[in-house]
């Protein structure tokens, strides 16, 4: 039975089949190795669910101090982040978070990071519903053009990526230095510090291991030893002489370990354990109480038209009329051209400068409550995969709405709620 299966299979091993297999293999190798690798243009933020990106961290006022710099030059990435009140149940709250940078490897090194003015080289806690100011000081290390994002990692929630900007670095990484002053006052270059000794130490031991292995291999090899063992003469292979060699080797090894250990303690008499622990008490932005509220009254998303329509009851309790100027979610900015007469400096792939309109363009007067419809429509909504909201387990949108008075003063209000998907153009809203 078994032989018949083998024989049946053997019939298929023809010269033609072998040629076809070889050709397929060659095509696969060519397809996977020959084309030039293209640089990553994003850090996977589009792969994250829309509801998660819209209703966790709302990034705004993001600024990159430079988009072109030389190796060893510093840039600053600043901005604000609103911790969304309607934080999704599916994601752990940012009780343990870390301010990070989305970049393809350490092409820029992080020289400093601050949240609310507090240095945060370690993880920290954020409060839901609050806003925080952040700052990242980055030093150019490797030449090239890279997409650099701000990012906050949330424990059990994953990385939440903010807007990204293309940064061009000129020069050569071999000129990069990373000077650091130790507590004893000496300055070292962290880029190369201790690397030569690390190589020497590791390769010393690896060479010793290779000598040990080859010594035993060269004395009787493998096959001859197998025959001896099979012949019941295993004990003759390891006699007193061999044990003596082993004992001496072990003594030398242990003495070397002891010597290296003592030398390290002598050279570095003051060492500390690594530092860790959650940083608490990060101050949120001290904002005046808002004079505007927006109550969600329902919404829909038309998938073919890439159009988000939201009904809001907006109350202006301030002393100046307000116009709806911007909606921002998941790092995208949708602007009302009635309010933004010029295009702000922001990455184009995230800026829909004509992406927002309102059903009633008249300013909301002080003391007035007005029901109005906000329409967000732009291809970027779809390109950045926010339209996938229709297919999420929690089809609630979220974001920040910015309203402006005639003097340009900005009011911020959080909006969000369930939206009903419309899968056909012109479907009832």
């Amino acid at each position, binding site marked *: 039975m078994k*032989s018949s299966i083998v024989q049946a299979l053997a019939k298929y091993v023809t010269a033609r089949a072998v040629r076809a297999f070889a050709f397929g293999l060659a095509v696969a190798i060519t397809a996977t190795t020959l084309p030039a690798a293209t640089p990553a243009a994003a850090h996977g933020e589009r792969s994250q669910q829309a509801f998660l990106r819209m209703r966790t961290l709302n990034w705004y006022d993001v600024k990159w101090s430079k988009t072109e710099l030389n190796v060893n030059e510093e840039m600053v990435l600043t901005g604000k982040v609103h911790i969304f009140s309607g934080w999704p149940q599916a994601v752990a709250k940012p009780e*343990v978070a870390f301010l*990070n*940078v989305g970049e393809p*490897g*350490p*092409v820029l*090194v*992080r*020289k*400093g*990071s*601050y949240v609310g003015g507090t*240095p945060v*080289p370690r*993880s920290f806690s954020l409060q839901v519903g609050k806003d925080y100011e952040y700052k990242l000081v980055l030093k150019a290390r*490797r030449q090239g053009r890279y997409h650099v994002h701000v*990012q906050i*990692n949330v424990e059990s929630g994953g*990385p939440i990526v903010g807007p990204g900007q293309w940064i061009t670095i000129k020069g050569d990484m071999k000129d990069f230095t990373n000077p*650091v*002053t130790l507590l004893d006052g000496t300055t*070292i270059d962290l880029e190369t*510090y*201790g*690397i030569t*000794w*690390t*190589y020497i130490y*590791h390769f010393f*031991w*690896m060479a*010793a*291991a290779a000598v*040990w*292995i080859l010594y*035993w291999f060269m004395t009787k090899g*493998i*096959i001859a*030893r*197998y025959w*001896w*063992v099979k012949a019941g003469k295993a004990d003759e292979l*390891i006699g007193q002489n*061999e*044990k003596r060699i*082993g*004992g001496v080797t*072990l003594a030398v*090894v*242990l003495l*070397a370990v*002891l010597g290296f250990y003592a030398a*390290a303690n002598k*050279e*570095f008499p003051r*060492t*500390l354990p*690594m530092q*860790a622990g959650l940083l608490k008490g990060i101050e949120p932005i001290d904002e005046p109480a808002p004079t505007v509220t927006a109550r969600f009254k329902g919404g829909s998303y038309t998938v073919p038209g890439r159009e988000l329509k939201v009904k809001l009851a907006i109350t202006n309790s301030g002393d100046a009329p307000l116009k709806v100027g911007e909606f921002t979610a998941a790092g995208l900015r949708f602007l009302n051209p009635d309010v933004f007469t010029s295009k702000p400096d922001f990455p184009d792939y995230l800026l829909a400068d004509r992406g927002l309109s309102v059903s009633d363009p008249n300013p909301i007067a002080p003391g007035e409550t007005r029901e109005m419809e906000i329409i967000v429509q732009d291809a970027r909504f779809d390109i950045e995969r926010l339209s996938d909201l229709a297919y999420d387990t929690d089809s609630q949108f979220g974001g920040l709405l910015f309203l402006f008075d005639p003097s340009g003063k900005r009011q911020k209000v959080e909006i969000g709620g369930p939206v009903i998907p419309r899968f056909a153009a012109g479907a009832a809203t």
Partner: protein
Amino acid sequence: MSLSTETGAPAGKTWKSKEEFLGCVILTDWILLIVLFAVLLGSFHIHYMLLAGDWDFWIDFKDRRMWPTVAPIVAMCFAAAAQSFFWQRFRLPIGATTVVLALLIGEWINRYDNFWGWTFFPINLVFPSALIPMGFWLDIVLMVSGSWLVTALIGGLGWGLLFYPINWPVLAQYHQATEIDGVLLTLADLIGFNYVRTGTPEYIRMVERGTLRTFGKDVVPVAAFFAGFVSMLVYFLWWKMGGWFSTTKYLESEEI
């Protein structure tokens, strides 16, 4: 008619001469050594990266509690299995040394080519744990005692105890202190902070977490003894695993 001028082995003999026979044995020995080394390198590397992973990848994960606990325990698996194979089949006292050397060669290729060559992480962030002297220890304890039971008990304990002192000569320099914006950091912490890892946030580190501190403030000895005890148990299991893996099975001709 054959073009070869060589003559075959005499009738009834497989080999023309003793020299030819010995040459064939030596060549096969070398092939075996290289193949075995490559197989152990690949399999141990996967095993160790999956189980020790970040503790072995990054300098700012190499703490005094979790790293000296996890790394020796998971490294013991292949060391014991390889000893079982090399000792029982060949009486070669090189099992543990061979696998740790294979692992380190694989790791250094990975760290240099991938971590440094492709993603530019400096070597002082990504160098692997040193393990070679532990390999010597385990092999020589087995050779001198001739007993896998003694090796499990004495060798296993020493395996755990030796790990931190072996690594300290490289690690010590990175435990010097510095201060950034009023925050105290070791150089190991600072390297991890400076050289951005987008997918590795700081909170993933498990720096001296756990309940072993119940036994006192001397973190490393407690972790090392614990690692030693668990390594003993792992040794027993994986010695048997190695024996099972190195069993030769034959198929009867009528079965194929």
